[in-house]
């Protein structure tokens, strides 16, 4: 089963022929992901990485039956790419692009309302179902197949968590990098719900950071739906208020979006909260064997 993507997913790459698109599409194909083609406006009809290139997402969907798209389009055009994929009926759009203007995402998010498309990201490492499909930029070899799901705002912290899980003798079902921007398509709570309902996932690691209220929202839902152990970590316990820490969304606005406030709510809702990022893996082992 797994969630969001699997070996049957048919993936197209928007921004296929660019440097980033080419590099990561190659890695995805090597991982065994079913990449069926790509889109670069103006290069339709050509071949790239032994796969067809299309001018529009609609053309690509018609010709390949693609149901998933991954976006490597530059920031100025990325919101448009999200809307194009949505319009073409793509079920899952994974936007890797970092640095999209916020007002563009306000528009794109509005465009998505009422449509059957799920957006992951932007500014995210993507989604990987270990051993089946890698729709993202994560180093595939770290994600050994297993039964632990990961939801994370951060890229390298996702790899860190996956590595600890594998070193602890377990493996990954699906890891979802939801993205670090102020506006993202799939908030923590929705990604957590998917994994909670996945029969092939036994435990969930939820990694958040300062800023926004998504972790608290997820924690409140989990309180009444805790059918599997959840281990949580919030990055930015030492971050000063008002400063942006790398991610556009990582800024402490008020008293409620500090790491301490989020960790308290998560703890109260039954999540195994770790203070140190080095303890994620072993805490999951302990929680599962309890």
């Amino acid at each position, binding site marked *: 089963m797994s969630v969001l993507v699997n070996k049957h997913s048919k993936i197209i790459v928007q921004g296929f022929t660019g440097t980033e698109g080419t*590099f990561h599409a190659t*890695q995805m194909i090597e991982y065994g992901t079913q990449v069926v083609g790509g889109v670069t406006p103006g290069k339709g009809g050509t071949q790239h990485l032994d796969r067809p290139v299309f001018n529009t997402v609609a053309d690509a969907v018609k010709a390949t039956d693609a149901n998933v798209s991954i976006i490597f389009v530059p*920031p*100025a055009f990325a919101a448009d790419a999200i809307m194009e994929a949505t319009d073409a009926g793509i079920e899952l759009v994974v936007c890797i692009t970092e*640095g*999209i*203007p*916020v*007002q*563009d*995402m*306000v*528009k794109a*998010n*509005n*465009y998505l309302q009422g449509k059957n498309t799920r957006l992951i990201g932007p500014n995210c490492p993507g989604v990987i179902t270990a051993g089946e499909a890698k729709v993202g*930029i*994560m*180093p595939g*070899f*770290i994600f050994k197949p297993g039964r632990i799901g990961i939801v*994370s*705002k*951060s*890229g*390298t*912290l*996702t*790899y*860190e968590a996956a*590595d*600890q899980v594998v*070193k602890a003798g377990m493996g990954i079902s699906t890891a979802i990098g939801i993205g*670090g921007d*102020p*506006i993202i398509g799939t908030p923590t709570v929705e990604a957590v719900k998917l994994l909670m309902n996945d029969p092939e996932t036994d435990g969930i690691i939820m*990694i958040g*950071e*300062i800023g*926004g*209220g998504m972790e608290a929202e997820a924690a409140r839902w989990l309180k009444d739906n805790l059918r599997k152990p959840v281990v949580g970590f919030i*990055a*930015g*316990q*030492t*971050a*000063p208020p008002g*400063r*942006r*820490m*790398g*991610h*556009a*969304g*990582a800024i402490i606005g008020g008293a409620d979006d500090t*790491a301490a406030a989020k960790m308290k709510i998560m703890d109260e809702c039954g999540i195994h909260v770790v*203070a*140190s*990022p*080095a303890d994620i893996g072993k805490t999951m082992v302990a929680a599962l064997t309890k």
Partner: protein
Amino acid sequence: MNLHEYQAKELLKKYNVPVQEGIAVDNVMAAEEAYRQIKTQTGNNFAVVKAQIHAGGRGKGKIVGTEQRGVAVGKSVEDIATISKNILGGTLVTIQTGEAGKVVNKVLVAQDVYYSGPNPVKEFYLSILLDRGTKQNVIMYSTEGGMDIEEVAHNTPEKIFKEWVHAGSPLQGFQARKIAFNLGLSGEAFKNCVKFVTNLYNAYVGLDCAMLEINPLFKTSDEKIIAVDCKMNLDDNALMRHPDLASLRDVTEEDPTEVEAGQYNLNFVKLDGNVGCMVNGAGLAMATMDMIKLSGGEPANFLDVGGTANAQTVEAGFRIIMKDPAVKAILINIFGGIVRCDRVAAGVIEAYNKLGNINIPIIVRLQGTNAEEAKKLIDESGLQVQSAIQLSEAADLVKKALA
């Protein structure tokens, strides 16, 4: 990116948003001339001198070593000259600047808005920002202007109103009217407020603001609605489509080390601790800072080297971190994905040799792609660098280094 009040007001005028008129100057003579011009325009002897720094609380703040406030009223050319002389070149300390304060390079000589007229003046508050919860822009406003809005929100939350703007359309007429009614306005002031709010929202969207705050939003005695102060923060990600705005950046307002880091595409934030760190990825960088704290240290910085850690960026990172004499140890934490750890290790060794004289402990934790090879490179380099692969090992090494 933050703008100065005078820059923000110039931009607002382009969107037909009425502002308190003024002239920005950087010397006393120009301040005198500005005063004469404003006096001629307004027919009023009073004018106000406002220090231009990227921080609020200027009216209550003082120039170091004097009793001079950051905003002061004068009623003669001599007054204006004295105030400008006191402020220009001085260091202004306000509730938002911290103890170090900020050097004032410019003052805005502005019209006095409290001139007498048929009706009493009124001060309101209005700001526009993104509501992350609803993923819409929200206009937040209050009848309680000219004061600390966080205090108003805390003590009298019922006095704060919010108007969300639907993402698919501009601010609607009924919304602008609602705002003006809720502020208790009528007649000419009501009409002016509707226009003001509509144009201000257009400015917010048109300029790709991350935040736009008018405090106070002012009703004059002759029923005009004007922006007396303006804090404008632009979305850095949108500057690519506003080349004219990018040039408004005042680097003297920013931490010089952070500016230098930016030139190397390093994402750096200066903090007050004793352990420097260099990490790839923002989330892992924050997590590493947290781990330093749990190991008994305090992070001296946030530094994300991004997805392209190489010899050059590592060297730049080293130099930037070591500028801070408080740093007692440096932790490099790289999780190699696309980035290969052995390349990073080679970069660390190269940078270390090039810089020489590094006499504080360096802890390097490299994990992920080619981690074993990287550890071998470091261990065999003969340098005073301690290597680790697991995050917990790195934490122990930090603890030891600080002991």
